[in-house]
């Protein structure tokens, strides 16, 4: 009996092959097998014969929407910088998408980075992706040489041990608190839809930090970000970060210092988070790719909470509603300017 992921993998291969063979799309963005346990390699597949390389499992932690604008550009007929955009339909690109990734595609469409009609969403209900760090921490220091994934367990092998752990216990925090695991855009359905999850308190971790005193919160922030090496993996893994020149790279004016000064590092993370406010789907890619294991997702999660409380919006869930922070309305909440005591939304 094949596992759920084996079935999904097979379905992905069949559908991708079909899309490429009948020329519906020029490329498919998916995952191929990785060289280490618990890793996969994102890849752009352009030939039907290549689709056998595609895989699906619980280690697909990078958000594939990140690749979408660039791959869309790469399949357009080549043209000079001053040539007009060709008339007529441009080639399409298929992309695997779980709930959060599909919501990022919605945001990309809202922000005119991606045209809906050029994207074929291969929708997969997410069962939650596993955190490599959690598994490694569980086996504290013992090297993991192979991990076999069953439907509800991970069989972890080392040089001198084999141990089975519960899969859900190793799932990333963002996936465990996710309420919309099923894609909001569906062009080709892969596997069965995932039902929305009832989560009594998706912001529990944020609230634990909010409950602390200012000094305690500052201590948490300073410690958490002190190990940042400024490699910008979090930024580059994020589908929201597509500015041609990032504010940290700007020289005129130079907004942020470039070395490991704690103020500069802190500023980078705070501004990065704020740039994601109202747009972040808590896909967890930033946190998953950080080589230093920094939980920078706590910042964006806090802002997700604020945006939900202030505007009633979750990024990517309302394709026809303008983005909350790029739209002005006279009745916009403004506690961030004047914190009115006793206001219903105080503390946001």
């Amino acid at each position, binding site marked *: 009996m094949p596992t759920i992921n084996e079935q999904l993998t097979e379905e992905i291969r069949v559908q991708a092959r079909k899309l490429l063979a009948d020329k519906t799309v020029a490329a498919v963005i998916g995952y191929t097998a990785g060289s*280490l346990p618990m890793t996969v390699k994102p*890849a752009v597949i352009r030939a039907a014969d290549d689709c056998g390389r595609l895989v699906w499992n619980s280690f697909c932690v990078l958000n594939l929407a990140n690749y979408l604008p660039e791959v869309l550009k790469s399949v357009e007929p080549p043209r000079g910088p001053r040539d007009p955009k060709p008339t007529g339909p441009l080639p399409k690109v298929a992309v695997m998408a779980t709930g959060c990734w599909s919501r990022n595609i919605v945001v990309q469409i809202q922000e005119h980075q991606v045209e809906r009609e050029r994207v074929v969403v291969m929708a997969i209900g997410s069962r939650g992706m596993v955190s490599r760090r959690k598994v490694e921490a569980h086996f504290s220091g013992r090297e993991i040489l192979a991990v076999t994934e069953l439907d509800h367990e991970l069989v972890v092998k080392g040089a001198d041990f084999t141990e089975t752990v519960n899969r859900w216990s190793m799932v990333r925090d963002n996936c465990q608190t996710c309420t919309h695991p099923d894609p909001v855009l569906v062009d080709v359905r892969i596997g069965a839809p995932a039902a929305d999850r009832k989560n009594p308190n998706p912001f529990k971790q944020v609230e634990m930090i909010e409950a602390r005193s200012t000094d305690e919160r500052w201590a948490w922030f300073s410690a958490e970000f002190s190990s940042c*090496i400024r*490699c910008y993996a979090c930024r580059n893994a994020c589908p929201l970060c597509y500015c041609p020149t990032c504010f940290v*790279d700007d020289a005129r004016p130079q907004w942020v210092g470039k070395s490991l*000064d704690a103020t500069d590092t802190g500023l980078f993370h705070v501004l990065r988070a704020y740039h994601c406010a109202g747009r972040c789907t808590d896909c967890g890619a930033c946190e998953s790719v950080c*080589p*230093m294991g920094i939980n920078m997702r706590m910042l964006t999660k806090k802002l997700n909470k604020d945006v939900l409380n202030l505007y009633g919006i979750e990024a990517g869930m309302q394709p026809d509603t303008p983005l909350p922070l790029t739209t002005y309305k006279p009745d916009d909440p403004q506690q961030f300017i004047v914190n009115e005591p006793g206001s219903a939304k105080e503390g946001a």
Partner: protein
Amino acid sequence: MQVFKLSQAELDSMIRHFGSLGMVYTPAAGKQPSARTDCAPGWQPADGAPLALATGPSATSVKTFFFPQPETMQTFSVKNNYPDRGLLREPETLTEKQIVVGLRPCDARSVLLNNLPYREDPYYQANMARTVLVGFTCDAMCSTCFCDRMGGSPMATEGLDIAVSRLDHGFAAEILTARGEELLAGLKLTPAGISELDELAGRRQAAPQADAAGLDALKERDLNRLYEAPLWQQLGESCINCGACTFVCPTCYCFDVQDEVVRGTGRRIRYWDSCMFPLYSLHTSGHNPRGQKMQRTRNRFMHKLKYFPDRFGPFSCVGCGRCVKDCPVNIDIREVMGDLLTVE
């Protein structure tokens, strides 16, 4: 060369003793924040607790002690009416001894490799002069380790001042340099007996041996053929062009230079840069010689595996495997090397 035998307690007290001679750093265990957050993420001042090293290299490399992030190159003032306004001065040369304990042979070798381009660099040399390396050889390799393939070995001592190796009972400490000897001056240590020396030699012999011959063919390969290899397109497409690989890499040594001014007082600093970033090669005119992701991914591997060896001899890689482990998209340099050897 002297070799001493140490119990765990003696080893720990030896490290505590180093504290009286200079700043002592050890790999940070877990996510403990570093006290020296300005320049050494992944390392912490030794706190006297028994040293327990995980298998394989530390999370971040030892390059931070030789090539700190940032390094002050000059200081200056831009205050109005100040007579020395705009005059750049060398900062005081740092002489405070720093003793790094717990690095692995791969990192020790990286210090020597980086010393090839930095042989004439005053700041790197000043840090070389003040840093003592007390390394721990590896009695096991991780699955991501490949030091032997790059010309190193898990039991190698090259680049270290003191090499500590695990024995069946306790440890052997090999004193390799005069600086290593200085650290132990005044300590009562037991010289290793014949059985310990035999055991050490046996372990060294049994360990994977340095062998870069399998890769030397790469150095002979025609530049153009490697440059035009089709694999770059695929790698470039997966790569997200972050700097994780370059920043965790012990042998990536590029830097950028920037002036920082706070209330009229300034310093010119250098800090880690990455050829993965578009800004790295961008001209002021807007022209970018490596404007595409693929070109930048290619440049990093070509530098390590072709340009650097063509200029200096060895590959600019010690096989620590950090980039393999930390790459967000699983670009594996071992696969790249394999592909480059066979590409036609």
